[in-house]
């Protein structure tokens, strides 16, 4: 109650948890299975090339009147589409390579954590798979999609979700009519809703139903990943994917680890006001898809308000639109192969 005296019911609560926030989160790498097999030299070279731009990002933050900028670094490991070598071998290899290149990996994140439910992790970090089945982060984000309406759309238009596809405009209509004895409709081109003169129409696959369940697309998981870094996801008001230190003995199995591992004890918070991704131009189409998705995610206004109030309190100006809080540097990071074809 506002004034100390009064009546309240706990089931009527609307509060959302706060998470600690850095000024900037820098992604030092998003590694897919084929690249993860390579030896230490590949990674040293990768981090060395990234290091130049990381330094630039740091000085940019300092130039923005931040005396002691809180910056955290992270890498994303694809253990969803591929099966990398076990954590006990891979994690020390990555950390050592980064150090040799003069970088510190603060957080190491499992990509499958975006797709699988993470409800159990917070309960008992030692046994992350024991929690009750909850929602995956991808499902939380999917629920918050508010589709970009084409011109002349009222709320009467039924949601066209449930197809697993999301676009930024109007698809070319089907040319077959389904009404008896009516003329078939002519072909029309697709159109981007916010087109400037000409359309750049994008149609993004979010997921596909496979024999053993739903397979989320790389773009969808990367969109979840960016929202997670920005500290904008909650599950029933609770924070999700809270970072945990790695267990003293690294397991053989990735699924036995919490989603977000804090590798560096002295790291600034994982979540940040802004997120920067430094990656090879090869990933540009994926990141364009990520942006198309993020343009259509309605983040909980309570969480957005909380984050922007705190930014204001720290004297930081933050774009109102979530998608504008994500920055990219597309640079040559060495001979990456990226995701497996198919």
């Amino acid at each position, binding site marked *: 109650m506002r004034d100390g005296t009064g009546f309240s019911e706990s089931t009527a609560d609307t509060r959302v948890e706060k998470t600690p926030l850095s000024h900037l989160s820098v992604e030092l790498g998003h590694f897919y299975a084929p690249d993860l097999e390579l030896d230490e030299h590949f990674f040293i070279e990768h981090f060395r090339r990234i290091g130049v731009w990381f330094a630039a990002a740091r000085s940019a933050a300092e130039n923005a009147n931040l005396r002691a900028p809180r910056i955290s670094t992270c890498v994303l490991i694809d253990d969803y589409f591929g099966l990398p070598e076990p954590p006990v071998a891979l994690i020390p290899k990555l950390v050592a390579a980064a150090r040799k290149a003069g970088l510190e990996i603060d957080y190491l994140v499992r990509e499958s954590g975006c797709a699988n439910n993470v409800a159990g992790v917070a309960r008992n970090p030692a046994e992350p798979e024991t929690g009750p089945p909850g929602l995956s982060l991808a499902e939380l984000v999917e629920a918050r999609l508010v589709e970009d309406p084409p011109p002349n759309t009222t709320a*009467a*238009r*039924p949601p066209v979700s449930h197809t697993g596809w999301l676009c930024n405009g109007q698809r070319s209509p089907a040319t077959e009519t*389904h*009404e*008896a004895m*009516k003329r078939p409709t002519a072909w029309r081109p697709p159109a981007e809703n916010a087109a400037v003169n000409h359309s750049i129409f994008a149609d993004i696959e979010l997921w596909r139903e496979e024999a053993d369940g739903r397979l989320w697309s790389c773009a969808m998981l990367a969109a979840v990943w960016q929202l997670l870094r920005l500290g904008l996801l909650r599950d029933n008001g609770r924070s999700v994917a809270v970072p945990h230190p790695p267990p003293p003995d690294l397991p053989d199995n990735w699924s036995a680890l919490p989603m977000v591992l804090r590798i560096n004890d002295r790291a600034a918070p994982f979540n940040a006001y802004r997120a920067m991704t430094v990656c090879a131009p090869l990933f540009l189409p994926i990141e364009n898809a990520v942006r198309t998705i993020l343009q259509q995610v309605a983040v909980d206004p309570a969480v957005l308000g909380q984050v922007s109030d705190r930014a204001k309190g720290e004297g930081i100006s933050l774009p109102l639109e979530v998608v504008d809080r994500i920055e990219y540097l597309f640079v040559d990071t060495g001979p990456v192969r990226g995701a497996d074809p198919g």
Partner: protein
Amino acid sequence: MLVFAASDKGGTGRSVTSCNVVYRSALSGSDVCYLDFDFGSPTAGSIFQINDVTRGVRRGGMHSYLLEPDIQTTGEPHRIDVWTQSSRASLRQRPPGSGKLMLFPGDQDGGEFGPDKEALRRCVHLLQALDEEFDMCLIDLSAGRSYATQLVLEATADPALRGVAARWLVFHRWTRQHIPAAAGLVYGKDGILDVGVRAGHDKDELQAAIKFVRTAVVDPDSIELSGLRPAQVAWLRDCDEDLGQLAAKHQVGRRAMLGEVPLDPVLQWREQLISDNDVVARDIANNATVDAFDDLARKLAADEEWASL
């Protein structure tokens, strides 16, 4: 309760009988509505004598509700209160204690269509919303193996309509051609049972929810035929017996029958509601016809008539 009115052939008197049954139910105090799902030729407006919509409404009817959700800004289809909108004076006086009598008309230029997922979803929503409001919703379907029939079979299999009683009336004339045709519509390949099972219905449950209604039945013993010569009456009786055997052979016999409507010239030629006024004051329609409608209305609502064996 949802009631689906089907027939294999046109001209069975399906629509006019259905309208009259709905009307009798309203008179007895039930809130009822009539949905014109005869997409090819929506004519319920003329049976209820709603002047502007004798061939359906210009927009907002059943057809556009199902197929053009984008322009239906209210999410509700057009409805017509028969008690206030009918051009027939004797209908416009809603008797005290009677229930609502609502018509959901079709669209003028509607046609048959292949149901897509969205139309199915809309159909489920519509039936759900009307079941909130009405004791009985009668859905008049296009004749034959129609998309309308397929659509409602799929809709009633939807989990959102589980627990809502759904009953089927299959209308057929009492003739040598109509009896096997009606049986074919229900039991034949790609008939109601076939399509229903494919949509997820339990065959026995669905079959128990289907009853036949014989129309234009000539009763050799009725007073109307009292002028016939004995030979004619005997011939009629023979025919009737033959038809009875034919019906039994096709599983359209007495056990599967809910009721029968006698041949009535007023019904045949005027295709309109028969009011008590037509029977009593004007003496143009037969008492037996109105009794048959009352009987159908009563049996439709009586659970014991529909208990599965």
